Structures are given as C-alpha cells and as structure tokens.
C-alpha cells in the first residue's frame, strides 16, 4: 500500500529533480516502401509515417496529463533509408530526407531518425549514395537525423567508411556554418549500433524489428544526484546500492508509460532504454553525479572509475524493472548537453583524451563535442577509428558525434540551442594520422568475436 512518503518522493522527483520520460520513439518499418520510382517510394514513405504516427504526439500529451510526468520528446525512427532508397534509380537521396522532414513536421515530432546506412563490412549501392547525400540532406532539413555504422565486433572496422565519414562531417559543418555547424549535431558515426535505440541522433528501426514498435527512453540524472546526497561519506558500496534502487524506480515509471503508450497506439511495446540522459539545465547533469560521488570536478583522476560504477549500477537496477531492456541503456556523457560537463571543460578539468577514456565504460561515446573548425577530415577520421576500436574490441556500442565548428577555435563557444545546448571548443591533437587513414581497407574482427 502506498504511504505518504512514497507519494511525496515521486512528486519531489518530478517537480524538483527533473524526472521525466525523455522520449517515446515509434519505430516504423519502411521496407515495403521501396520502389524503382523514387517519387512513388517517397509517397509511400510519407503515407506510412502519417498512418502509424498520426496520433503519437496526441497520445504522448494525454499520458503526460494523466500520469503527471513530462514526456519531453515524441520521435520517430525508420528503416535505414539506404535500404529503402537503394531500390530506386535515384542518384541522390536528399529528396528522401525532405520527405522524412515533411512527415515529421506533419505529425509534430521534433526529430526523425533513420537517414542511415550500415556499412561495417562494405557499401551497397544505396549506402554509397546515401552517405554522399548526408551533408546536403542535413543542410536542407530541420528534423532529420543521420547515422552510419562503420564497424562491428563481428565484422571489424571499415576504414574506407571511416575515411569518408571524416570528409562527410567536414562537409556537413561547412554547409551549416552559419549556425555553428549544427548539421553535425544530427549526424552520428557508430560502431556496434543497435536496432532499437530510441535516442537521437542515432535512432533507426532495424531490419529485425517488427512493422512498428514503441520504444521508450527514460532519464533522471537529477534524481540519482539527489539520492546520492543522502549517502555522503558512506562507503562506495552504498553509492552503488543507492543508484540501483533509484534506477529501479525510474525504470518502472518508464515501463508503465511504455506499456500505456503501446496500448493506446495499438502498437507493440519494444524496449525500454534506461539511459541517464542529461540536458543543459541545472540539476539534470551526469557530470554532477560523478562529482557527488567524490570528484572535485568531472574529468579528474577517478572519473573513469566513478562512471563505470554509475553505468553498471544503472543497468543492474533497471534490468529487473523492465520486461525488455534494450537500446543503449547506461549513462550518456555528451558535452554540450550536460551543464556539469560544460563547466568541467570550461575549467580545463575535462579534456578530449579523458572523454575518450570515459567512453570505454559508458554507454555511448564521444558525444556533442565541439572542436576547432580547422580540424582536418583525416584527424576526424582518426578520432572515429579510435572510438570504433574501443567499441569493437570491448563488444559495446560506441559513437562519435563531433562538431568541427567552422570559423571557431579554442577559447570560442558553439551555441546550438535547446536540448543540444552549447559547448566550449575542445583541443584535439595537432599531429597527423593522415597516412594511417589514407590506407583504407578493413581492420579485421577481433579474435574474441569468433564465438559460434
């Protein structure tokens, strides 16, 4: 039976500690929208999205009202467009992106993910065209997110794709330079990408997924931070226990909303992603949790260990609370989207290299990091290769979402606005890796991938 303390605890989490459902993401298969005629294919895509997601936003708002918890984003993920558009005779897929953008605006979602290609072992025709279309597509659309998977533990790392993505990121930055190269904030390069991730910019609807599905992402860094304030000075075991208990409660809330959304939309519930996703708001930061555990500033020695503990405890607490856990599930460490990370970078406590180390134990990767606009394409490729290696060798998802901010350098700040936040420009190595990247080819899959 409920007691007043439990009820007030939940109310406090929502009112003061920014507990929210970060996203309800509807995955929609577009495999049956392929057509040799691009125009026909795009019409099918538009119609199908409207048919399935027409009342997504309305149902989301209804749930917010009835359960009294904010649902920050309602979003859509679709089949990687390279797979659908590959059937057409088109030589450029920018029109496909525009169709997605138009459908997203019509149904009222703020992002639509799936302008994507999976090239961890090589390119199909559709993959090549899609990747070349990314810069222009991100320039001409507002809500479309793109992603490219360039490596996997099973396949190794496609270094030709790594090389090309460095160039694509630079081109995207150039084409959107009037807005601090914001196009790059909607482009993720993955290793071991997952098919059911509800979070942007990396969401897409994998080929093993059903016709349509509801995936939910919860959040709540503020709730974890507040819970940890009560165990200050206690042994580290209490920290892990407290995070687990808190993650359990947050995840149960997400599971309930996921089930309700699924029932009301008549679409099966897929997975719950129990990530701690920060925002630039005060009191919604993953960095501040690490500091609460005992670091003077996020980025100092001990940060990787504290993050490893946090990430693991979230998973342990969340797994029992949900019938199906999936997506990325862990702690996100974006820079521009986390108030504490921004502060740590500004103070000089958190460096690019430390962030790379942290990605070995967190759930994603080098995320929303602004770097000098002058950074070369090969250096960006080198960063992607390093991050992919961490994912491929450790059998986990890693991602790179870098913004080379054209016209800005160290000491400047890039401002993206909204949930994307703002970021001080970070330093990258001045030394070249050009000869390494120019080689091309494929890094073989690691020995421990041969389990069968």
């Amino acid at each position: 039976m409920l007691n007043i303390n439990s009820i007030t605890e939940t109310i406090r989490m929502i009112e003061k500690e920014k507990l929210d459902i970060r996203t309800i993401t509807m995955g929609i298969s577009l495999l049956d929208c392929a057509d040799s005629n691009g125009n026909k294919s795009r019409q099918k895509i538009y119609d199908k999205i409207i048919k399935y997601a027409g009342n997504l936003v309305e149902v989301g708002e209804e749930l917010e009202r009835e359960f009294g918890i904010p649902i920050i984003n309602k979003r859509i993920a679709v089949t990687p467009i390279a797979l659908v558009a590959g059937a057409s005779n088109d030589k450029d897929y920018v029109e496909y992106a525009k169709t997605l953008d138009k459908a997203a605006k019509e149904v009222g979602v703020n992002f639509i993910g799936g302008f994507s290609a999976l090239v961890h072992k090589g390119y199909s025709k559709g993959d090549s065209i899609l990747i070349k279309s990314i810069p222009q597509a991100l320039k001409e659309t507002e809500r479309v997110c793109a992603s490219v998977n360039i490596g996997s533990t099973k396949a190794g790392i496609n270094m030709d794709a790594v090389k090309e993505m460095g160039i694509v990121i630079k081109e995207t930055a150039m084409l959107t330079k009037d807005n601090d190269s914001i196009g790059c904030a909607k482009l993720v390069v993955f290793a071991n990408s997952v098919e059911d991730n509800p979070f942007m910019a990396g969401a897409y609807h994998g080929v093993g997924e059903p016709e349509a599905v509801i995936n939910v992402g919860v959040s709540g860094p503020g709730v974890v931070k507040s819970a940890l304030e009560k165990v200050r000075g206690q042994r580290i075991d209490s920290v892990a226990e407290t995070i687990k208990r808190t993650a359990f409660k947050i995840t149960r809330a997400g599971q309930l909303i996921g089930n309700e959304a699924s029932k009301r939309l008549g679409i099966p519930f897929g997975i719950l992603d129990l990530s701690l996703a920060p925002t630039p708001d005060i009191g919604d930061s993953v960095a501040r949790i690490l500091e609460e555990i005992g670091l003077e500033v996020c980025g100092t020695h001990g940060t990787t260990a504290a993050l490893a503990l946090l990430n693991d405890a979230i998973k342990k607490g969340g797994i029992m609370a949900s019938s199906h856990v999936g997506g990325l599930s862990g702690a996100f460490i974006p820079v521009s989207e986390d108030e504490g990370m921004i502060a740590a970078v500004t103070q000089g406590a958190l460096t690019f290299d430390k962030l790379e180390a942290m990605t070995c134990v967190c759930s994603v990767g080098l995320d929303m990091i602004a770097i000098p606009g002058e950074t070369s394409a090969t250096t960006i490729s080198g960063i992607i290769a390093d991050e992919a290696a961490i994912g491929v060798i450790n059998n986990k998802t890693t991602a790179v979402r870098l913004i080379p901010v054209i016209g800005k350098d160290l000491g400047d700040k890039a401002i993206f606005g909204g949930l994307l936040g703002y970021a001080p420009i970070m330093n990258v190595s001045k030394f070249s890796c050009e000869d390494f990247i120019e080689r091309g080819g494929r890094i073989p899959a690691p020995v421990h991938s041969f389990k069968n």
Partner: protein
Amino acid sequence: MRAIVSVIGKDKKGIIARVSSALYKRNINIMDISQTILEKYFTMIMITNLNEMTISFTDLAAELDKLAQEIGVSIKIQHQDFFDAMHNIDKEQ
C-alpha cells in the same frame, strides 16, 4: 480508476474544504487523506476513486488547475498506477 491528488503550498484556511468540495461536486470519492509539512510547505495527499466521476479526467485536471490558482497553491492529479509502479514491486505491469 484511482488517482492521487496532491496539494502543495503555503498553509492557509480552507484548503481541504475547497479541494474536497471540488471533488464532491464531480462525484469523486476520497478514500484516504493525509497531510504533512514537507520542506516548510503544507502538503496534502488524497487517494481518490474516479469510477463514478461525472467529468472527464482532462476537464477535472483543468478545474483543479483553476482552483489551485484561486487558492494560491499547487494541485496535481495523477493516476495511482504511476506511484504503484515506482514503489510497489509486486504490482504487475
């Protein structure tokens, strides 16, 4: 269906009376009521049964919003399922 009505704000006369009569007007039964002072604020929690209510949930929430503004406190109404999910491990979802 059960819902939790929570009233938080500065203590003053007539809060319970006004909130309960607003619920009574819509044929809502109050099953349990408790109050406490939480971080210096008056906090009242009501567990209500909405099975026989004569208004939609959305309209009821809007009425309570209006009343909250008149009294100068915060009034929220939420499905009880949400609290059960977080605090009752035996509750099936």
